[in-house]
């Protein structure tokens, strides 16, 4: 599956902007981004629901850009599930097979298998409205998988479920995807879902892909400020490089960086750091900045501390409870910033 320079305009709004994307065989790829970033439009382009304003869409090397949705043979699971309310669960799943005019015995067998795969083999006679949200979700999955499509497209499939159910369904989705071995493209705005489910994540913003990579790579080495902000919490510090691996932030001592690209002295630099990597400790040492505690949010397992450096920049710190130093607003603390925790933003 491949997109080449795909662009889609809605009136004056460019929803998808010159997108290039290759998806590997059997891969689970997440399109992650805030609402309005173009991820659902990208899915609609792949499915053939909307034509691209410019660009090409290839499946198995064949150009399908002009091919209508019903000839693309992709499986789609919609956010609203879009189950046919007037048909039974069984007939919903059989829909694609009837369109393909398979013999009745074959339809019988394959619908049975698909319903078994999602553990709904006893619900065939019921109408979708009689099932719970989680079950409807599984019917939608069975309906999309029953004709063995080459690619499965999932549009926020877990968004309509409550939290507990969502976690269960997430594991189940991953297990089914592994069993069937189908190439899957998954649209979500939930970073936890994307990090937990996918082989690779494409982080999208304003119709473009900001970064494409494995979940760990995206989280630990965000390429841009947007990615650092969007995936997990992070603090961005502005500073000036004073050596290939040294950055001065505000009035404090220069910070030492490990494992990042060489910086040119004198350049303005943006450093991101995850709040869970910052430690509060009384002692002095390398890479320690002084700050004043401005806000405390106690959350049980941890406390979120907002601290302000002497030059006014703010740092977010997650302190695991029980806290190593007593915490109070207005108090001065020492922030230990590990050299390998810094991410230099482009």
């Amino acid at each position, binding site marked *: 599956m491949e997109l080449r320079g795909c662009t889609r305009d809605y009136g004056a709004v460019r929803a998808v902007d010159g997108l290039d994307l290759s998806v590997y065989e059997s891969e689970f790829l997440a399109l992650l981004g805030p609402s309005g970033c173009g991820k659902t439009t990208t899915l609609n382009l792949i499915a053939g629901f909307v034509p691209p304003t410019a660009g090409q869409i290839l499946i198995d090397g064949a150009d399908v850009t002009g091919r209508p949705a019903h000839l693309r043979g992709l499986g*789609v699971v919609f956010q609203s599930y879009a189950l046919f309310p007037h048909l039974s669960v069984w007939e919903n799943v059989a829909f*694609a097979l009837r369109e393909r005019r398979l013999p009745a015995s074959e339809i019988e067998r394959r619908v049975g298998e698909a319903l078994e795969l999602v553990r709904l083999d006893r619900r065939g006679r019921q109408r979708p409205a009689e099932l719970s949200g989680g079950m409807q979700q599984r019917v939608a999955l069975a309906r999309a998988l029953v004709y063995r499509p080459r690619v499965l497209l999932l549009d926020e499939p877990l968004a309509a479920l409550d939290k507990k159910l969502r976690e269960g369904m997430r594991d189940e989705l991953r297990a089914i995807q592994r069993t069937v071995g189908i190439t899957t493209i998954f649209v979500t705005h939930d970073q936890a879902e994307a990090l937990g489910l996918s082989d690779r994540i494409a982080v999208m913003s304003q119709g473009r892909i900001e970064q494409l990579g494995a979940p760990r790579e995206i989280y630990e080495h965000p390429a841009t400020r947007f990615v650092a902000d969007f995936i997990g919490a992070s603090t961005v510090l502005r500073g000036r490089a004073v050596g290939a691996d040294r950055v001065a932030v505000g009035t404090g001592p220069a910070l030492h960086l490990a494992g990042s690209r060489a910086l040119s002295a004198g350049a303005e630099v943006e450093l991101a750091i995850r709040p869970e990597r910052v430690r509060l400790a009384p002692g002095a040492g390398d890479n320690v900045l002084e700050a004043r505690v401005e806000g405390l949010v106690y959350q049980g397992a941890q406390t979120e501390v907002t601290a302000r450096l002497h030059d006014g920049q703010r740092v977010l710190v997650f302190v695991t409870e029980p806290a190593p130093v007593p915490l109070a607003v207005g108090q001065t603390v020492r922030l230990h910033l590990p050299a390998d925790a810094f991410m230099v933003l482009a």
Partner: protein
Amino acid sequence: MIFRLAVVGLVAFMTLPTVVVIAVSFNPTAILSFPPAGFSLRWYENVLTYPQFQRAAVNSLLVTGGAVALALPVGTFAALALERGRLRGRHVWAAVLLSPVVVPGVAAGLGFLILAAALGLLRSRSVLIAAHVALILPFVVRSVWVSVRNLDPALERAAASLGATPWRAFRRVTLPLLRPGLFAGLLFAIVVSLNEFVVSLFISNRVTEILPVAMFNYVVNYTDPTIAALSSLFIAATFVAVWLADRYLDLGRVFLRH
């Protein structure tokens, strides 16, 4: 208690004319007097054997049948176009297609008469059918439109992704889900068309006239309870149609939900 009295009073007030007509239809004497002087079915017999009523009944069936057969697919298409199509000035189109003709019946009738005369169609039922289509279309469009609006657009996309051509998706998904709206529209169209009088009066003659026009012409010439008997039959038919509609689909749902 006061509310109950008020409701009973209102219902009595609204149904009184109907009750009077039905009562008079059983009057054994040849005058339209109330209360009736006895019980007789002679006027019902007269209705069924009067040749001009028989002819008008056939005309009514042809005109209503033809108009409904045309208005249903056209109205469905219009409802889909209003909701899905990218029309310029959609609100104007919607206003026209969704409101019953607001010009006075006399004016509309006159218009159709002049048009029919210009086209040389005055002796034909086709002009009656055309006029009825124009009069019932808003009811069809409105009923179907409500069903269209309740339809999740993702359903057709789902059908397409499963391999259904646009036509197959329409047949297997859209049309079945529009059924309540289509059925309501059909019933309203039938009731409105069967009872239409003013416009039809202008564009029909003795050969093509439909039942309400025939009834009017009868009343102009005679004043016996035959007309009351025919009216009672009409009332019964309309009542059955509305009862059916209410029984097989939730009319409240079809009409109050937007």
